[in-house]
């Protein structure tokens, strides 16, 4: 078993899938000779050359649009947007074109493509290098959205995304790119099912739900709670569109108390949708109102990013609220 960081796993999975399927091409700014600004495409250019690992200028609209054209006509493009903050110049292609292609052609066309993008804060990048744009994409039917938090999940979900038939926005938590190493599968067909979350930890006192970059603090919070004798169920959603309603409702109904964590701004956050679904479906099973711990409704701040991000203390405070309700 290989022991790898998140970003190494992305590169290795791309490599394996490119070997397996010669329709796969990778394109984006500096993904080729440089191997990507975060090295998420390291080694691909040497292995597959410039026809399959395409260095593009800084043209997100053209990168994503070209990926659509490739996907429709038989290739399997994986486009990289260097920071998720740079996706907005290409937003039309992704949201208005890729997402609606199948619907607007009455099922005649489809675009099997992946748009990878490092997302999230905690790297002191300021307003334009720290955003969490997932809400825009989960609000876009026609896209699938995945935001894994561990190397192993990155491997399985990226492979699933690349083998799927629909456009997938693949968000990568850049502050966790090199935070942990773990064993990843050597099985070249290791995939993870679309829309399925995972239980990171089991407990009977409270359910913590998160995804992506915030999983690190959520897991730390659960460990801190265990020290106090409070056992938390921890759900990593992994897929945000579709998200795992079945797992969430089952665990929350069992425990009756839930805290939802996400570093994206609060309003219309995906976890607000999850909380609303919990309230609609199993209100009578709840012992306390769901509590959200999120980023704030502000642009991403440079100096105060630790205050902005939902840290362990804010999660613990929310848990206290739902336990004492």
């Amino acid at each position, binding site marked *: 078993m290989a022991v790898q960081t998140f970003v190494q796993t992305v590169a290795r999975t791309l490599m394996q899938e490119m070997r397996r399927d010669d329709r796969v091409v990778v394109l984006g700014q500096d993904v080729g000779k440089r191997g990507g600004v975060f090295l998420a495409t390291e080694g691909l250019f040497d292995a597959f050359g410039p026809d399959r690992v395409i260095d593009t200028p800084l043209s997100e609209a053209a990168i994503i649009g070209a990926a659509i054209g490739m996907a429709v006509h038989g290739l399997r493009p994986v486009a990289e947007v260097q920071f998720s903050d740079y996706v907005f110049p290409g937003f039309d292609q992704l949201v208005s074109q890729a997402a609606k292609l199948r619907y607007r052609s009455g099922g005649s066309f489809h675009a099997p493509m992946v748009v990878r993008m490092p997302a999230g804060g905690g790297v002191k990048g300021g*307003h334009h290098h720290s955003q969490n744009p997932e809400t825009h994409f989960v609000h876009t039917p026609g896209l699938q959205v995945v935001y894994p938090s561990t190397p192993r999940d990155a491997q399985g979900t990226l492979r699933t995304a690349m083998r799927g038939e629909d456009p997938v926005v693949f968000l990568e938590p850049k502050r966790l790119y090199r935070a942990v190493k773990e064993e990843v599968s050597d099985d070249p067909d290791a995939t993870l099912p679309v829309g399925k979350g995972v239980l990171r930890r089991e407990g009977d006192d409270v359910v913590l739900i998160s995804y992506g970059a915030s999983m690190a603090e959520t897991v730390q919070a659960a460990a801190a709670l265990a020290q106090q004798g409070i056992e938390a169920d921890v759900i990593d959603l992994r897929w945000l569109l579709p998200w795992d309603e079945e797992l969430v409702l089952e665990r929350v109904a069992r425990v009756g108390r839930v805290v939802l964590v996400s570093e994206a701004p609060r309003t219309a956050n995906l976890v607000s949708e999850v909380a609303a679904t919990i309230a609609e479906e199993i209100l009578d099973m709840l012992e306390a109102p769901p509590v959200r711990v999120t980023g*704030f409704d502000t642009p991403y701040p440079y100096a*105060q990013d630790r205050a902005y991000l939902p840290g362990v203390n804010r999660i613990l405070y929310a848990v206290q609220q739902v336990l004492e309700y």
Partner: protein
Amino acid sequence: MSTARTIPPAPNGAAAGETPPPDALLAMYTTMLTMRRFDERVRDLSAAKAIPGYAHTYFGSEAIAAGVMAALRPDDWIASTYRCHGHAIAKGVALEAMAGELYGRTTGTAKGKGGSMHVSDFDVGMLGAFGIVAAGIPIALGAALTAMRKGTGQVAVAFFGDGAVHQGVFHEGAGLAMLWNAPVVLLCENNQYAEATAIEYHLNTSTIADMACAYAMPAERADGMDVVSAYAAARRAVERARTGGGPTLLELVSYRFSGQYEGDAQGYQPPEEIARWRERDPITTFERLAPERGISTEALARVADEVDRAVDAAFAAAERAPFPEPDDLFDDVYVSYP
């Protein structure tokens, strides 16, 4: 798909035009040296992790900001890029407020909310630094249109790098600027690298200036390593804009001595290429040419002293400045919100 294209050699030396008088030249030198010393400090503090986040230094392009700003009036506008330190210094943003922003302190231009890539100061005509490539171009256009409407005679300069010409907003901005005859200068700071991609691998014309023909826009390509050349070219473009002649695409060719950001190992820039361009370092070039331009070595030494003191003082003040409170992050999202 990526075949290298042949780019004509960079222009070398001052273009036609008068050399400014010694006191004006010395002011440009002061500006260049301030940028250099400021960014040397940024480089060191960034390596020591004393300044967090991504820092993009301006080493190699100092003549451009110094020359262009010398051709502007104080009330003219500029829009900058994430590589903004040089532009901000040349436009007159206080060093202490810039250092404060980099340190994330309340004395920063954005009260610590922006960091290195987001220095702005409307009082000196600095519309802002934009972390998104090419984002400032249409915004500078808007400032120019406002000046036109109000009849103020102000000009707006949009700075962008060579990589930015592949963004849609560059082309949309160029098209509208020409259509509306706006008093704007599209100023391409061609440092020959779009991040790690050398220009011969990303440009689809021979020069950036060539792109102007699609918009029937006047264009010029000039040496961006020599401050007199940069000043002379900028002056022509600025005067055109100010006198109702509309926009210019001005390509000033320089070279990025540093990596894309501090910490970038720069492996994609051949060492001999860096060495060759370092021989044309805008600051040492200026110092070499100073005597024949009527500037004494004593005058240069006095400037160096002043600059060192100013930069020292700015960073010392920034280090002592208070951090914002966590709650401050809720300020300044809106002008008013019920």
